[in-house]
C-alpha cells in the first residue's frame, strides 16, 4: 500500500518553498524588519546626509567660482610693479592662464601694509625691492617675499592666485628678454594646447564629481542590506525548524535532501529578492526627493526616469548577489541548533560580504577580468559599471555611454557574474544538504555549538588551523597597531612588536596549551657545545650575508625608486642610529624583532604548518607558507622579496637544527648589520649613498656570498649526528 504518487523534484521543492514563504509572511516582525525597514531607512539616511552632501557640492561650487585677489604693495618700485600687473590684466589677448578674475593692488607704506595684512583686508603683501623692473627686464632673477594674511582661515586658492599672477609677470619678462635677444617667442613655447568644448561648471560639475562616489557607497550598502534580507528567513529555515521541533517531519519527506534544501533556498531567495526590490525602490524614491533639497545642478541631473532605469539595472546585476547571499546564509546557519546560535554564525558573514563588496571599489579593481566571477565584489563592480555606462547621467541628462568608455565588457561581465553566482549557489546548496543530513549535527546536544571555542586538551604542537588563525589574528593586530602606535619611531616599533606579534602569540599559545618547548623549538641546536657554537656562528654569518646580498638585489631592482614609506623608514632608522648610542639601537632594531618574530613565525607558524616530524613535502610547504606570511607581515612591497627569502632560509635552518636559536641569531645579525653600517659610516658616506642610491661595491657582495657559504657549511656541520642522538633518546 505504498504511496503511488511520484515524489521529489520541482513539485516537492516548490511545496517546501511555498510552506516556508507562508510561514515567513505570517511572521509580521520579521516581515517588517526585512521589507519595511529599508523603506524607512534610506529616507532617514538621506536626511542625515543631505547637509553633508549639500555642503560638499557648495564647496565644489565655490571652487569653480571666479576668484578675487587683493594685493598690497610697498617699497620703492611698488607702483611700477602694480602698473605692470594692471597692464597684464588688461591685455588684449586675455589674461594669462589661471589669472584671477579680479586683481586689486594697493600701494602703501610698509607699516600700513603690515596693518592691512594683519587685519585681513588684503590677501598678500609684497615689499617690492628697488631695481625690480630693471632686474625683470634685464637678465637677473628677482627675489620676491610674499606674505599671506594669517588672520583668515587658510585658503589654498590665495596662494594659487598669487602664483598665477607671478607666473604671468615672469612669462612677460621672458618674452621681453627673448625679443631683446632677437629670438622667437616659440623658443620657450615648444607646445601649445587648445581645448575644444567646455567642462561643466558650478553644481553640475560638483554633481559629476560626487555622484560616482555616492553611487559606489550606495551599491556597497545595498549589497549588505540585500544580504541581510536573507538573514531572518535563513535562520528560520533550518535552525528555526530545529528549535521548534518541526525539522524531523520535514526530513522524512519522500525526496532527496538536496530537494528539501533547494525548497528552503527558494523561499529565502524570494525574500532576499523582495528585500532587494524594496531597497532599490526606496533608493530611487529617496534620490528623487533628495534632489529637490540639493543645489539646482543635482536636482536637474537626478531625473526620475533615469533613476528608475538605474534601479532596474541594479536589480538585474544584483539578482545573482541575492542568490549567493541566500545560499550562503542557509549554509552557515544549517549547523545551528537554535535561532540564537544561527544569528551568531551570521555575524562573520556580514563582515565577509562588506569586505568583498568594498573590494570592488579598490582602485584598478574594475579592470580585472576575473572580478565579475567573485561573489559580492563582482556584483557591485558589474552594477557600478552598468550604472556608469547605461544609467549614468551627465548634466544634459544624456546617457553617459555617449561620453564614457565602459571599464568592462558589460554583457560578458553580466553573464560571468550570473554563471558564477549559479555555480556558487549550487555548491553552497550541496554543502548545506550535506550538513543537514549529517546526523551528528542534526541531533547533537547544545554544548556542541561552542565546541570550537572550548579550550582544547594539551598537545605537542598547534594544528595547522591554529597556525592560520594566529597569523590572521596577527594581521588584524598589525592593522590596529598601525593606527594605535604613536608617531615617534621608537615607541611605534615597541607597540608594533608587542601588539601585533607578541600579544596574539602569547594569548593563543596560553589558550591552546601547547608544549612550548616543542612548538618554539626551545632547545640547543646541538650537543656537545662545539656544535651549538658552530650553529650560532653559522647563523650569524648567514644573517649578515643575507642582508648584504638582499640589499644589493634590492638596489639593483628598485634603483632608488622606492615608496615614500620605505624612504621614511630608512630616514627614521638613520636618525635613530646617528642620534643615540649604538646598544639601544641594536636592541630595539635587531634583538627585539628577532626574538618576537622568530617565536611567531619560525616557532608557532612553522610548527603548526609542519607538525611533528614532518615528511619532506610537508616540511617544504610549511617553510614556504611561513615565509610568505613573514614577508606579508613586513607590509612594504620593496622589502617583501628580501623578507621572503630570509623567511625561507630561517625556516629551513630551524627545521634542520631543531632549534630556534640559530634563527634568532641570524635574524638579529641581519637587522644589526645596517645599524652597524649606519653607525660607523661618515656623514659624507651617508650623503653620497642617499643621493646616488648606489650599488654596493662588488667586493662586499662577494664577501657576503662567502659568508653564506661558510654559514651554510657550519649549519650542516652542527647538524651532523643530530638524528642519531634524537633517535637514541
Amino acid at each position, binding site marked *: *500500500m*505504498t*504511496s503511488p*504518487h*511520484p*515524489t*521529489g523534484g520541482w*513539485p*516537492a521543492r*516548490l*511545496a*517546501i518553498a*511555498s*510552506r516556508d514563504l*507562508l*510561514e515567513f509572511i*505570517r*511572521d509580521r516582525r520579521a516581515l517588517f524588519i526585512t521589507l519595511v525597514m529599508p523603506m524607512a531607512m534610506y529616507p532617514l539616511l538621506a536626511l542625515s546626509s543631505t547637509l553633508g552632501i549639500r555642503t560638499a557640492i557648495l564647496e565644489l561650487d565655490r571652487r569653480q567660482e571666479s576668484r578675487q585677489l587683493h594685493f598690497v604693495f610697498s617699497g620703492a618700485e611698488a607702483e611700477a610693479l602694480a602698473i605692470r600687473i594692471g597692464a597684464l590684466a588688461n591685455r588684449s589677448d586675455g589674461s594669462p592662464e589661471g589669472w584671477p578674475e579680479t586683481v586689486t593692488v594697493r600701494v602703501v607704506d610698509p607699516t600700513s601694509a603690515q596693518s592691512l595684512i594683519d587685519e585681513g583686508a588684503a590677501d598678500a603683501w609684497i615689499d617690492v625691492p628697488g631695481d625690480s623692473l630693471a632686474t625683470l627686464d634685464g637678465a637677473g632673477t628677482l627675489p620676491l617675499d610674499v606674505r599671506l594674511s594669517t588672520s583668515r582661515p587658510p585658503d589654498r586658492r590665495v596662494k594659487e592666485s598669487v602664483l598665477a599672477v607671478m607666473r604671468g609677470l615672469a612669462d612677460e619678462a621672458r618674452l621681453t628678454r627673448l625679443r631683446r635677444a632677437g629670438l622667437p617667442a616659440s623658443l620657450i613655447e615648444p607646445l601649445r594646447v587648445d581645448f575644444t568644448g567646455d567642462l561643466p561648471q558650478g553644481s553640475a560639475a560638483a554633481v559629476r564629481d560626487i555622484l560616482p562616489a555616492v553611487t559606489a557607497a550606495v551599491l556597497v550598502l545595498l549589497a549588505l542590506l540585500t544580504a541581510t534580507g536573507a538573514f531572518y528567513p535563513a535562520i528560520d529555515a533550518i535552525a528555526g525548524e530545529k528549535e*521548534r*521541533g*518541526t*525539522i*524531523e*517531519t*520535514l*526530513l*522524512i*519527506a*519522500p*525526496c*532527496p535532501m538536496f530537494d528539501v534544501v533547494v525548497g528552503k533556498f527558494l523561499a529565502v531567495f524570494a525574500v532576499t529578492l523582495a528585500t532587494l526590490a524594496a531597497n532599490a525602490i526606496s533608493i530611487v524614491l529617496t534620490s528623487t526627493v533628495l534632489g529637490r533639497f540639493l543645489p539646482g545642478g543635482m536636482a536637474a541631473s537626478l531625473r526620475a526616469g533615469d533613476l528608475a532605469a538605474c534601479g532596474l539595472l541594479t536589480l538585474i546585476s544584483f539578482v545573482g548577489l541575492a542568490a549567493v547571499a541566500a545560499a550562503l546564509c542557509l549554509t552557515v546557519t544549517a549547523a545551528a541548533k537554535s535561532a540564537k546560535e544561527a544569528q551568531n554564525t551570521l555575524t562573520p558573514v556580514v563582515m565577509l560580504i562588506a569586505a568583498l563588496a568594498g573590494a570592488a571599489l579598490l582602485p584598478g579593481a574594475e579592470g580585472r577580468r576575473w572580478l565579475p566571477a567573485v561573489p559580492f565584489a563582482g556584483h557591485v563592480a558589474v552594477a557600478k559599471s552598468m550604472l556608469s555606462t547605461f544609467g549614468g547621467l551627465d548634466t544634459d541628462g544624456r546617457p553617459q555611454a555617449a561620453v564614457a568608455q565602459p571599464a568592462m565588457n558589460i554583457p560578458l561581465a553580466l553573464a560571468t557574474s550570473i554563471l558564477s553566482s549559479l555555480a556558487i549557489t549550487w555548491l553552497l546548496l550541496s554543502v548545506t544538504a550535506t550538513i543537514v543530513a549529517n*546526523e*551528528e549535527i*542534526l*541531533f547533537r546536544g547544545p554544548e556542541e555549538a561552542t565546541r570550537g571555542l572550548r579550550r582544547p586538551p594539551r598537545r605537542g604542537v598547534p594544528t595547522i588551523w591554529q597556525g592560520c588563525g594566529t597569523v590572521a589574528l596577527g594581521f588584524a593586530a598589525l592593522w590596529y597597531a598601525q593606527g594605535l602606535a604613536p608617531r615617534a619611531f621608537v615607541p611605534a616599533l615597541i607597540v608594533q612588536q608587542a601588539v601585533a606579534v607578541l600579544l596574539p602569540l602569547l594569548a593563543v599559545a596560553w589558550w591552546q596549551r601547547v608544549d612550548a618547548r616543542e612548538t618554539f623549538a626551545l632547545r640547543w641546536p646541538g650537543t656537545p657545545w662545539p656544535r651549538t657554537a658552530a650553529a650560532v656562528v653559522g647563523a650569524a654569518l648567514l644573517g649578515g650575508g643575507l642582508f648584504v646580498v638582499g640589499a644589493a638585489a634590492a638596489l639593483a631592482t628598485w634603483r632608488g625608486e622606492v615608496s615614500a614609506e620605505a624612504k621614511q623608514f630608512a630616514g627614521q632608522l638613520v636618525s635613530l642610529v646617528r642620534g643615540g648610542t649604538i646598544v639601544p639601537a641594536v636592541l630595539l632594531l635587531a634583538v627585539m624583532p628577532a626574538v618576537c618574530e622568530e617565536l611567531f613565525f619560525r616557532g608557532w607558524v612553522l610548527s603548526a604548518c609542519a607538525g611533528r616530524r614532518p615528511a619532506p613535502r610537508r616540511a617544504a610547504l610549511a617553510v614556504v607558507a611561513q615565509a610568505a606570511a613573514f614577508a606579508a607581515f613586513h607590509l612594504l612591497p620593496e622589502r617583501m622579496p628580501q623578507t621572503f627569502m630570509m623567511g625561507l632560509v630561517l625556516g629551513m635552518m630551524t627545521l634542520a637544527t631543531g632549534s630556534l636559536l640559530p634563527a634568532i641569531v641570524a635574524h638579529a645579525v641581519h637587522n644589526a648589520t645596517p645599524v652597524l653600517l649606519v653607525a660607523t659610516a661618515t656623514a659624507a658616506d651617508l650623503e653620497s649613498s642617499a643621493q646616488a642610491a648606489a650599488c654596493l661595491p662588488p667586493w662586499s657582495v662577494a664577501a657576503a656570498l662567502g659568508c653564506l657559504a661558510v654559514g651554510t657549511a657550519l649549519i650542516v656541520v652542527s647538524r651532523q649526528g643530530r638524528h642519531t642522538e634524537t633517535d637514541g633518546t
Partner: protein
Amino acid sequence: MIEICDLVKEYRAGGGKAVRAVDGVSFHVADGEMVGLLGGNGAGKTTTMRIVATLLAPTSGVARVAGHDVRTDPIGVRRSLGYVSATTGVPDRLSPREVLDSSGRLHGIDRRVLADRIADLSASLDLGGFIDRPCGRLSSGQRQRVSLARALVHDPPALVLDEPTSTLDVVGARDLFAMLQSLRAAGRTILVSTHRLHEIEHRCDRFVVIDAGRIVASGSRAELVAGRTGGLEEAFFATIGGGAA
C-alpha cells in the same frame, strides 16, 4: 511490515569515544499489528524509531519497512510510513489544512485528490473545528491530532509514533490511542514507543522492552505478566532490573 534485525547504532560522545545507543536489537511488526516499544529515558527507543523513519543511519544491522531497506531505499521507506514525533512538529504559523496540504504536495498527491483526503482526515480525526486556525493556537491534543493526520495524509500502510503522548494529558492520550486502535482495525501496522505503560497496557498486541540499547523482553501482555501478581508495569520493572515502583 516492519523488520528489524541485529540493529546497532553507535554515537560519538565527547572525546571521540563511541557509545552504543542501540546494541543488536531485533524484532518485527506484522501487518495490521500494533506493537509497543517500552523503555526508560535513554533506553534506545527514540534512536530505534529514528532509524526506522530514516532519520538516522544504522551503524550495522537491517531495518525494513514494507520491504524497503532504510539504507538502500530510504525514499521507499518514507513513502510507506507515517511518522509522529514527541514534539508534534507542526508549524505554529500554519493552519492544519495548510500543514496537510503542504505534506500532501510533498508526497506528490494531486490537488483534487488531496482536497478529498484532507476532508476525510478532518472528519475521521475530528479536525473540523480548528482546521483553519493557526496551529500555534491549538491545544496539545489538537496539535497531536494534526500531527497524526499529517502522518496519514499519503495513506501509508505503517505508522511509527515516538512517545506521542508525552505532551498530552490523560484525556488527550486516551483519545489518541482510541484513534490508533481504529487505525489498526482498518489494517494499518503501528509501532508506538512510550514510557507511560498504563496508557498502552491493554491496547497493543505485543510489547518489546528495551533497556540500555538491548531487548530485555518481548511478547504479549499475557506473556510478559505471566507468573506475576501485578500488571505490565511490574513486569517491566522486573525485566529491566529496576524493582517494583
